[in-house]
């Protein structure tokens, strides 16, 4: 930065630079060991277990989809930064890898392998690079990538769901036509046929809870196991990379609003099912907590999370799509600057009265 250089030159001009050559910079001269890339790679590590699990649930092609998605995201960032004459080294910070993984996790596991490439280009180039690179994007890149794919290939993106494999035949779906094996997600069935149909297809409620919690259900990679995702999220909270506020408020508000409005009468909805199904868990822990696109203050975070939950339930119950987490987060993202502006940290020093 210019300031550092300016300081260095004045000091150096004044005295003769004596050996050994000493670095000069502004205080503090000590920094914590956390870096952006360290945080990002930790998030990547927390996102790996669901992928491994998904191979056993949906088959080997999830791995290919994730790989294609990650590679296309990283390559897009590298190429576009090169073309825009920005440092290409930013790909090492891991944020493009996270975007790639998240994108792969929220698209159906039965889509063609070229589809994540388009999503990745949209996510990285349009949402991130065009806005100025890491730190300047207004929306969560992976979610924009998904929204783009849903808009462009609605048929594949809403129907390429696969029933879980229960016999560890991980290559079962490789090369199989989507139409032949596709099934509907629990949320889709819930939305259009009601809870009775869900129970008929997936077993009793307790079986549903168990399967949803451990990951045996049709859905995207991210929807496999709530347990694995929660463990990853809790690790991030333990490392203090994210705080509990956003995830808790997202989950609580999804549960709360579903309980009120989800049933045939008020206060008869099934909050547990609502939280375990769809992308609530991954959205709460890994997407709504994205640093760049979420508020920094506690109150802001709580409202942000509650807003996501409310919008999710609204879209699920009244909207056209069976799942609403993606759009709920995207709708709340642009509110982040406003939330940061409205809910400021409490100042240490008592402030003088206005106009005093």
């Amino acid at each position: 930065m210019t300031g550092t250089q300016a300081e260095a030159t004045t000091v150096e001009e004044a005295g003769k630079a004596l050996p050994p050559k000493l670095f000069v910079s502004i205080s503090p001269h000590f920094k914590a060991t956390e870096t952006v890339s360290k945080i990002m790679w930790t998030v990547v590590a927390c996102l790996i277990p669901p992928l491994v699990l998904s191979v056993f649930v949906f088959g080997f092609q999830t791995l290919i989809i994730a790989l294609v998605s990650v590679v296309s995201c990283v390559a897009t960032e590298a190429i576009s930064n090169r073309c825009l004459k920005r440092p290409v080294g930013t790909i090492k910070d891991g944020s493009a890898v996270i975007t790639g993984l998240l994108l792969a996790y929220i698209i159906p596991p039965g889509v063609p392998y070229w589809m994540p490439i388009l999503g990745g280009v949209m996510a990285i180039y349009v949402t991130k690079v065009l806005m100025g690179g890491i730190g300047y994007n207004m929306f969560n890149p992976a979610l924009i990538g998904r929204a783009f794919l849903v808009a462009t290939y609605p048929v594949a993106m809403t129907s390429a769901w696969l029933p879980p494999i229960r016999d560890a035949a991980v290559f079962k779906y490789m090369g199989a036509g989507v139409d032949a094996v596709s099934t509907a997600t629990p949320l889709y069935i819930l939305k259009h046929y009601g809870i009775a149909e869900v129970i008929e297809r997936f077993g009793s409620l307790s079986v549903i809870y168990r399967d949803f919690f451990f990951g045996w259900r049709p859905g995207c990679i991210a929807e496999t196991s709530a347990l694995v995702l929660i463990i990853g999220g809790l690790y991030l909270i333990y490392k203090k990379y994210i705080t509990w506020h956003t995830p808790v408020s997202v989950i609580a508000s999804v549960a709360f609003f579903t309980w009120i409005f989800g049933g045939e009468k008020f206060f008869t909805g099934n909050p547990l099912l609502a939280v375990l199904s769809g992308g609530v868990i991954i959205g709460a822990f890994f997407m709504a907590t994205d640093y760049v696109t979420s508020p920094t203050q506690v109150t802001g975070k709580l409202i942000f999370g509650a807003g996501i939950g409310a919008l999710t339930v609204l879209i699920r119950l009244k909207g056209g799509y069976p799942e609403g987490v993606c759009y709920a987060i995207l709708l709340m993202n642009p509110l982040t600057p406003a939330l940061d502006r409205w809910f400021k940290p409490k100042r240490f020093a008592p402030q003088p009265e206005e106009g005093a």
Partner: protein
Amino acid sequence: MAIKEKTNTQLFVDGILKENPIFKLALSMCPAVGISTSVMNGILLGTAVLFVQVCSSCTISLVRNYIHPKIRIPTYTLTIATWVTVIDLVLAAYVPVAYKAMGLFVRLIVAFAIITMRLEMFASKEPVGKSFWDGLGMGLGFMFAMMVLGFVRELLGSGMILGYDVLGFKPLLFFVLPCAGFFVVGIMMGFFNWIEVAYNRRKEV
């Protein structure tokens, strides 16, 4: 505005290229984004705008000395609305085929920024002849822009040109959605600016 008096031809050409209402003046973006999903839509809306623009420009230019300056915008709106209604009714009555295709678009025009803008900027100051050429240029410029947008969006969005299946599949359905309209408009604006910059640079050299 104009430093040098422009000839009628210049007015006409400028409206299409140098002062293209969508790519350069960024006017009437809503219809541009909303309607430009196919080339045919572009042509139809463009034609409708062309009619109303030319008629309104001439009318305002004719009465420009009688318009009270404080109510000029209401007067413009009134003029446009009248012409829109008249054209709508006439088409419906005597050219039902054209009305079937264009009826919806004609009625959309009432609130178009581009027409009001040209009335305010040009027709209310210039004689009828010039206003006519300016209106013609602007209308054709709008039509041209709509066709370009429609071409890109129809080709990429539904794989068709003028309703004929040229690709046989739908590459990026995204492009027929309204949000992609902004996309294409943005890309086209950049493209035309780039051309202008490159052209000017060459002229300097």
